[in-house]
């Protein structure tokens, strides 16, 4: 008989990924474990009682080799019952085969890759919470069409995230009759992008569309202000939805900036507002508007799947995951294949200090402000 | 002026000097003679403070200096031109000379001293901006001597004075050393050209296996049979 559920994770607590992991995943993991244990644990019918969670957390140092090894350690040596997902597309993809081999469900909040579509049959244990590039692309194109955008500058960080989004959205823009005037990539962490921004300014495009990682997102925002680049639509990616983005630049400066998301406490899902409040109370900081809530929703999904299956048998739990619907702070999660139907593409925009949903149309919490107001 | 009394010096556990005593008076030119490995360099290092004797004392101008750090001894007016030149290889000729005059006293009169050194070794002026490492062997020797003089010492110790110098220059250098006395500088000279050394020195000491075996007026010593045999190659 069992008196606890052993849950482990290997995630970046240090190294370059730890910024993202420390924003979107680690606080939610910790908070969820505390909450579940406060409730007395997860109810498992098989044992006829609530089983508290024992939680093991290892640091991958942001190194994929280490991540792979630690996941093996958790499975083979610590013999955990469940694993929580690591941070980032690359790491998730690298550990996915191991999760599969040992039949551990992987509910990943920060993995998005079109490459997975061809692999779906090979990874029955992989479930993806966040929107895929195709969905995000469609939402953006839809929004641009509505706003009458004709010419865009498309730039991206040279990493899987940026490349895949670009590959997907470029043809979609073409189909919609929107012209890509400038298409450029740059390595993550490039120290100075003013030349590129000046060029975009000179081209007088309607929209800047950037698939960027946090360091570049921050840099471009600052430098766009300096060179006076202020197109009608200003869209950057990972980082825009972070509270620290608003924190660094101030609400006035980020007003009108768009980014992917989106989740905010005003979404009409049960528990959303309460989740937001608990997060702020526990960590003295807001969750980001991009993947935090999805990470938390993934944990809620896992919890519900265990309770529904009424057992710790992971094969059965997988089947529940693959077929069930789970109400969460991001809405009812349901997996179509491995992809979360609750996560179509969404675009957010900073308006008066809140990151409002502006696309898709039916999910709007506010109307888009276009053209973007001038930099303060 | 300098009184070395009964010192014993060691390299870790190996004793290199055994009860060595030596004296230099004002304006005196003293030669130190000995075969390779006799301990000449060791004695010079002990005086200049690079080594500290295990016992015995070194007095300079009535001050005990045997446990003083080397840089303080320099300030008292002792200059030591080391064996093997030991130049600052990646600095220019001029900068090496500047470093010779590092002590406050010497720094104030640097330009004046420099002029004198340039007079003695004109080539150093020509090569001013060249890196020390690219000088020819003899030029390096001249630079080492020049640098030693830059500190305006009261006592100047030369280890292997004429090492690598062409004959004409070696002769010249011996003359220069002699004239240094006229500028109130006492000299302790280690030199393999024993004949020459004895010619210009007032007194000389002979060091063998870390012990002083002979001392006296240099004229007398050059007649000494032992010296003739062992050091003059006669």
């Amino acid at each position, binding site marked *: 008989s069992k008196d606890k559920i052993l849950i482990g994770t290997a995630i970046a*607590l*240090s190294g370059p990924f730890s910024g993202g992991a420390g924003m979107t995943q680690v606080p939610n993991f910790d908070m969820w474990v505390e909450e579940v244990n406060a409730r007395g644990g997860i109810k498992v019918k098989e044992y006829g009682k609530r089983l508290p969670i024992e939680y093991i*957390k*290892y*640091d991958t*140092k942001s*190194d*994929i*080799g*280490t991540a*792979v*090894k*630690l996941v*093996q*350690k958790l499975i*083979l*040596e610590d013999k955990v019952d469940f694993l929580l997902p690591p941070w980032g*597309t*690359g790491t998730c*993809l*690298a*550990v*996915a*085969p*191991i999760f599969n081999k040992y039949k551990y469900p992987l509910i990943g909040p920060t993995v998005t*890759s079109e*490459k997975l579509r061809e*692999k779906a049959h090979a990874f029955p244990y992989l479930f993806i919470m966040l929107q895929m590039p195709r969905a995000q692309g469609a939402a953006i194109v839809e929004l641009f069409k509505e706003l009458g955008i004709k010419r865009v500058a498309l730039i991206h960080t*040279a*990493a*899987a995230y940026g*490349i*895949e989004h670009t*590959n997907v959205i470029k043809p979609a823009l073409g189909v919609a009759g929107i012209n890509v005037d400038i298409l450029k*990539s740059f*390595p993550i962490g490039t120290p100075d992008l003013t030349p590129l921004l000046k060029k975009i300014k000179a081209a007088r495009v309607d929209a800047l569309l950037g698939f960027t990682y946090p360091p570049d997102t921050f840099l471009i925002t600052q430098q766009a202000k300096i060179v006076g680049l202020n197109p009608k639509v200003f869209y950057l990616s990972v980082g825009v939805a972070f509270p620290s983005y608003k924190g660094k630049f101030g609400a006035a400066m980020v007003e009108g900036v768009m980014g992917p998301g989106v989740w905010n406490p005003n979404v009409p899902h049960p528990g959303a507002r309460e989740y937001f409040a608990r997060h702020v109370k526990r960590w003295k900081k807001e969750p980001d508007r991009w993947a935090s809530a999805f990470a938390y929703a993934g944990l809620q999904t896992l919890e519900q799947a265990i309770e529904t299956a009424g057992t710790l048998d992971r094969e059965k739990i997988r089947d529940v995951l693959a077929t069930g619907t789970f109400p969460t702070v991001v809405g009812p999660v349901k997996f179509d294949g491995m992809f979360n139907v609750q996560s179509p593409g969404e675009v957010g925009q900073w308006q008066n200090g809140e990151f409002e949903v502006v696309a898709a149309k039916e999910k709007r919490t506010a109307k888009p402000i276009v053209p973007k107001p001038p930099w303060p | 002026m300098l009184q070395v009394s009964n010192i014993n010096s060691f390299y870790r556990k190996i004793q290199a000097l055994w009860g060595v005593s030596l004296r230099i008076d004002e304006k005196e030119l003293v030669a130190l003679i000995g075969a390779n490995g006799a301990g000449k360099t060791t004695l010079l290092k002990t005086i200049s403070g690079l080594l500290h004797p295990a016992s015995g004392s070194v007095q300079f101008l009535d001050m005990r200096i045997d446990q003083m750090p080397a840089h303080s001894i320099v300030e008292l007016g002792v200059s030591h031109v080391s064996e093997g030149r030991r130049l600052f290889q990646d600095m220019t000729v001029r900068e090496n000379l500047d470093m010779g005059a590092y002590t406050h006293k010497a720094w104030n009169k640097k330009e004046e001293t420099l002029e004198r050194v340039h007079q003695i070794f004109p080539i150093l002026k020509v090569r001013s901006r060249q890196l020390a490492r690219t000088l020819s062997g003899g030029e390096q020797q001249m630079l080492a001597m020049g640098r030693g003089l830059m500190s305006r010492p009261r006592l100047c110790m030369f280890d292997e004075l004429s090492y690598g110098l062409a004959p004409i220059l070696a002769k010249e250098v011996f003359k220069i050393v002699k004239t240094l006395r006229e500028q109130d500088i006492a000299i302790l000279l280690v030199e393999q050209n024993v004949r020459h050394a004895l010619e210009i020195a007032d007194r000389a000491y002979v060091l063998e296996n870390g012990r002083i075996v002979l001392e006296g007026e240099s004229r007398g010593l050059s007649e000494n049979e032992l010296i003739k045999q062992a050091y003059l190659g006669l």
Partner: protein
Amino acid sequence: MHSFRVTSNKKALFLALLIVILIFAATMPLYIQPYIIISLTSIFMYIVLTVSWAIFSAPTRYISLASASFFGTGIYVWAILGSALPLPIVVGIGGLVSSLLALLTGLLTLRLRGLYFIIFTFGFSEFVRHSSQWWEINISGTEGRWVVGVDHTIIYYAMLILAFLTLITAYAIRRSRFGLALQSIGQFEEAAAHAGINVTAMKIMTFAISAFFMGAAGAIMATRWSYIDPSIAFSPLISFMPVLMAIFGGIGQLYGHILGAGVLTILAEVLLTEFPYYYMLLFGLILLAVILFLPHGLVGLMEKWWKGGLAGKHANT
């Protein structure tokens, strides 16, 4: 630095020890838990990296930071050929391609000494990473690649054999005329050239040999990762770890490199799993402590014990 001639006594001891360890290591997967096998594979990997790094860098005193580029090249060779060819062949090809890359690097950088060399080799591995990234984005149109995975016992044996080969090669080089030549290059390159040693050829050749093992190690390790992209494959950490491990263990002795790789790998894992939040702090402090108190690395400590033990025996008799 080691002496050219090794006393037969030491040699016999070394051989005996090696054989015992080898038999033990070869039978290990039969009775040991799988995770320990996986950990041992990592240790072997670092032994391969450190020893092969030291084949070139220890005697010549050229500190190379290009290891990542060789290791990563091996990884990519597996990623490209892994599904088509059997493991040993791909590993061999991985080694050869890395050697070729090392020849190129060597031609570019081995004329430089000291800091220049260090910086340039590091620059070179960054350059390789950028180039492969450029290639992937612009030519392959993607960034990451799926890699064919292999069972962990097979990886273990492959790495064990590679480690064994690396050690034998390192030992042979040390004992041969090459070892002496490399050492003299490290001591005074100009004099070595005048002694009739073709310094450039010697350096480049050794550099390529050392790269061979790194590339082979990369090809083997890739099988464990299942997904790679250039920043995973060419992680700069791989360039630094061998240096760290060799100095930590004691740069002058072959067993120092093994010791350094073994101890640091285990230490890192223990710290990482036991103290996830203070891991680096403790790791840094331990590094500092070793540097401060063991000027010759772990080898110094071992030798002290060794000598202490002998002295103790003498005292008793």
